[in-house]
């Protein structure tokens, strides 16, 4: 199937093309927003039309019997393994945000009428492994994650691909963070060799007094955009960290909207971007403080370093504020490694490459070290080093 | 007041006030005698700062009952700026920074507002600068202090000196010094005290709010009032200071 055929189509045509029935409101939302293109604000720096305009083979998403494993494993959009006692379901989605800004959020829901629902129980650590095995395919699936009140959960999301090529993954989660709970989501995604491209479109609801921590580690090449919408209730908080370390012809990044709805809600968003090769990094992040969200605190920062003359960073840290009882600030810088620091290290006998590595890691470390679990932190560090050595082959 | 028939300039009667949901002042009585130095001492949380805020009409305070009269008139209904123009001055414990507002410009505006209120002629820039020069010298302040932004980037000591500079310039009648000695080194403390003592002319009245007695070595008080749990529990002469130093506030018996 070629998704570009959905461009500028009426509701009826879309319903026919996607073969959907009785999901009128979703079709309408998708038709109104339209298939994204270069003029769509959040896709402005990401060439989405080129990715959509390909004849992909479509797959079947018939639920399989779930084997017992140490993590949740999703192969080509179908759950194959889950830890014992983990509640994983395949069912129609009941909680779709009818006011999302991203049309691919709706396309994802239209393409995947049944979602994978993961109910996290109690205080725990859960690992989700996404695996892709099909070439030239459109892999589409969506997850709904919910936790329980007063519980503290950490989830690790990892991505693997077999030796495939030219696949497009349309994925995303709807996350419901229950009252008084904490949910940490640590994502590590290393991409290279054009195995697959991805657009992930998420929605996160943070209930009263709940905390969510999203930590993204996006390394390597290829193309992937994470579109994220977060809504914060009263006294809710989000801490979002985005580390991009890109090389080759990569185009990756985040387009996010964090919306403060409840009073005393807080958001802290920090992006660090390291661009090597001909990579393009994207950080298009909006924090909106609605009229109802008095006493809000919002803080946003984006720091970028360009390591190669062909690298390119597009930063758009934005504040949209409709109330005066708040504290909000943002900052963004783009620069390069400090020559003096490099020289200092070299003068102590450290090779140029190692000195660069030390400084690049130092720049990234504030985010990496926020991952407290040492095993996962080490995994992120070694993935980071692998990208470094791949781009600095002497 | 216990002693004599001297003229009282401010009278606080049965004052009850709260901040947020918490009642802090619980029927406070206090009379300030004109021309004297009154020290308010008491443990943390006794309501010392709340008392000073109530006198100047701070937005945090809600008055629940009682009255404050100044020169025989109730001031509770007066706006903060009216109280200031009538001669009540508070030296803030933590003076706020106001970026971009030139210190001299601010002070001249305040002074001219006061002169206008008194029906006097306003000062022009040259007269004002001359006045400043003397004050700055006395306080050991660098002359560039008045061309900087109001309190912005000032050290703790500089902020307190700046408060005293304002006091000297505005010549108020009732002067409330809220923890004026906190965060001051010995030189700053001396300069600040000198400024205060210069204002002691037998007419102006001082209300020195302090947790420690250190400042009282420099500014001799006429009366000590001990504040505890939102009330003045004892009023005595300066002889109470060494007693307090030795025994703390717990040993005080109520009057």
């Amino acid at each position, binding site marked *: 199937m070629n998704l570009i055929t959905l461009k500028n189509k009426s509701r009826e045509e879309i319903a026919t093309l996607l073969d959907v029935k009785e999901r009128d409101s979703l079709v309408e939302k998708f038709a109104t927003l339209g298939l994204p293109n270069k003029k769509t604000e959040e896709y402005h720096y990401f060439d989405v039309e080129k990715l959509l305009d390909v004849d992909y083979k479509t797959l079947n998403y018939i639920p399989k019997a779930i084997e017992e494993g140490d993590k949740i494993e999703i192969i080509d959009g179908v759950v194959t393994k889950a830890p014992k006692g983990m509640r994983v379901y395949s069912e129609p989605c009941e909680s779709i945000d009818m006011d999302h800004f991203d049309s691919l959020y709706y396309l994802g829901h239209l393409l995947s009428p049944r979602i994978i629902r993961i109910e996290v129980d109690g205080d725990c650590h859960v690992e989700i492994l996404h695996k892709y095995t099909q070439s030239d395919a459109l892999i589409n699936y969506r997850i709904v994650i919910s936790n329980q009140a007063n519980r503290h959960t950490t989830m690790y999301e990892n991505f693997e691909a077999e030796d495939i090529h030219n696949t497009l993954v349309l994925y995303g989660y709807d996350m419901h963070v229950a009252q008084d709970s904490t949910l940490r989501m640590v994502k590590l995604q290393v991409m290279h060799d054009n195995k697959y491209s991805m657009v992930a479109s998420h929605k996160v609801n943070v209930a009263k007094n709940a905390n969510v921590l999203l930590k993204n580690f996006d390394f390597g090449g290829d193309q992937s955009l994470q579109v994220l919408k977060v809504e914060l209730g009263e006294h809710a908080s989000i801490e979002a960290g985005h580390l991009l370390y890109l090389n080759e012809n990569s185009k990756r990044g985040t387009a996010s909207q964090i919306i403060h709805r409840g009073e005393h809600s807080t958001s802290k968003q920090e992006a660090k971007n390291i661009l090597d090769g001909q990579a393009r990094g994207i950080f298009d992040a909006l924090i909106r403080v609605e009229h109802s969200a008095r006493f809000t605190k919002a803080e946003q920062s984006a720091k970028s370093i*360009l390591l190669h003359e062909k690298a390119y960073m*597009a930063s758009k840290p934005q504040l949209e504020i409709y109330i005066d009882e708040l504290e909000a600030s943002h900052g963004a810088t783009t620069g390069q490694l400090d020559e003096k620091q490099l020289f200092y290290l070299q003068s102590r006998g450290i090779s140029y490459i190692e000195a660069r590595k030390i400084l690049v890691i130092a720049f990234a470390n504030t985010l990496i070290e926020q991952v407290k679990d040492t095993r996962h932190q080490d995994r992120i560090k070694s993935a980071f080093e692998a990208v470094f050595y791949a781009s600095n082959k002497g | 007041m216990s002693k004599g028939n001297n003229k009282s300039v401010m009278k606080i009667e049965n004052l009850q006030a709260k901040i947020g949901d918490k009642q802090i002042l619980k029927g406070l009585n206090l009379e300030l005698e004109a021309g004297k130095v009154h020290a308010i001492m008491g443990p943390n949380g006794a309501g010392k700062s709340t008392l000073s805020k109530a006198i100047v009409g701070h937005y945090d305070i809600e008055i629940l009952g009682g009255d404050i009269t100044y020169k025989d008139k109730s001031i509770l209904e007066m706006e903060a700026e009216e109280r200031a123009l009538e001669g009540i001055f508070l030296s803030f414990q933590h003076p*706020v920074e106001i970026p971009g*507002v030139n210190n001299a410009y*601010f002070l001249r505006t*305040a002074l001219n507002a006061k002169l206008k209120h008194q029906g006097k002629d306003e000062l022009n820039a040259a007269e004002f600068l001359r006045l400043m020069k003397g004050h700055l010298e006395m306080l050991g302040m660098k002359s560039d202090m008045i061309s900087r932004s109001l309190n912005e980037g000032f050290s703790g000591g500089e902020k307190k000196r700046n408060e005293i500079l304002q006091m000297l310039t505005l010549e108020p009648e009732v002067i409330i010094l809220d923890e004026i000695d906190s965060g001051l080194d010995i030189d700053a403390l001396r300069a600040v005290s000198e400024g205060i003592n210069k204002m002691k002319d037998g007419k102006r009245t001082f209300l020195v709010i302090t947790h420690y007695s250190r400042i009282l070595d420099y500014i001799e008080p006429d009366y000590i009032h001990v504040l505890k749990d939102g009330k003045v529990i004892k009023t005595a002469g300066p002889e109470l200071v060494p007693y307090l130093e030795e025994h703390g506030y717990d040993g005080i018996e109520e009057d």
Partner: protein
Amino acid sequence: MANEGLDKAVSGEYALGFEIDIETDIIEPGLDADTLAFISKKKEEPEWMLELRIKALKKWETMTEPHWAHLDYEPIDYQSISYYAAPKEMIDSLDEVDPKILEAYEKLGISLDEQKQLAGVKVAVDAVVDSVSVKTTYSAELEKHGVIFCSISEAIRDYPELIKKYMFSVVPMADNYFAALNSAVFTDGTFVYIPKGVRCPMELSTYFRINATNTGQFERTLIIADEGSYVSYNEGCSAPTRDEHQLHAAVVELIILKDAEIKYSTIQNWYPGDETGKGGIYNFVTKRAICEGENAKVSWTQVETGSAITWKYPSCILKGDNSVGEFYSVAVTTLAQQADTGTKMIHIGKNTKSTIISKGISAMKGQNTYRGLVKINASAVGARNYSECDSLLIGSECGAHTFPYLESKDTQGQIEHEATTSKISDEQLFYLRQRGITEEDAVSMIVHGFCKQVFSQLPMEYAVEAKALLELTLEGSVG
């Protein structure tokens, strides 16, 4: 806090809303090729100019009005606007200005009488009422220095070579919808040429006044600073209080050659409309400067207090190596005003530098948006940008939005952007009041402090004006 005090402090009356009682020569509303022919004829333009106007109109007709800005306004009916209006007296006597106009300008604080100005603070003025320039002062004196200071209509007649070379060179005819409209219907505006090595001996300024009903004002300004020259130019504007919206779509082009500098200041005080959004000027303006040569420098300073809608992004194309672009802005939105304003800094040359200082103040129902692009091309080795965008909110119904676009393709380039949003703190207000300063004065003092970095960029006499204007806009007291 006493909210009435604050409301009073931020709802100042518009003091310049009077009407000049003169007879106006005005054409029927509507826009087509005939309208352009009419304007061109009135201006005694050469044929080539009319051809360019027609070309622009054709392009405009294929374009659509942009709606990406954070602005909400009623649709504009371009056919219901009259595109030419001029004081009638003008037609009879070109040298004599109607005394009523002179009087009106005095009332606006601008003297068109050279004799009356104080020696030492000479400011040359081009006075534009509706579609025509009524008077340009000091032209003769400036001519001695080789400086050309005249209305753009005169320049089209007298300096066709300069016009042909530079007009549309910075803002192309079809750059955007409003620029294309302006290119077709522009009526008057100012032309300045500063020859090589000349430091313009006085401040130049233009004062725009909309007076006629149902018209739009579409002025066009072109300033060329030849190698090694310097000029400081200022523009001001105002309009009568009216219930209908009026459109103002201007284009300003600045060309700065090697080692030259232009300092361009604007005090924009178009009628803002009332607190319900009734009336007020729709201000859609395209301003752009190109630093053509090495070490060229351009500095935009704007104080935007008026207009119902402001859509304006004075930009700098930093083409010459080591060229410098600066943007200093204070934008105030109170009542129901909306402003979407900022800048574009396009770094092309090596070691180019740009600075952006933007101060937005929102009060009552005002919506204030900073939108700015900093683009460092790969060729701009060693380019630097520093941006600071602060918003001050007064009241709970206003909005402040910051949308910076930062694009860097240069490994040696450096971009730094900082933004804060805050309100006037109760603590600051109280501190000043405790010293006997009224709440109104305290608010205005804090707001001035907030804008200081920008005001300090204005030429002395205009800084005073800007300060007074801000006070007027934000205070209850008139006069």
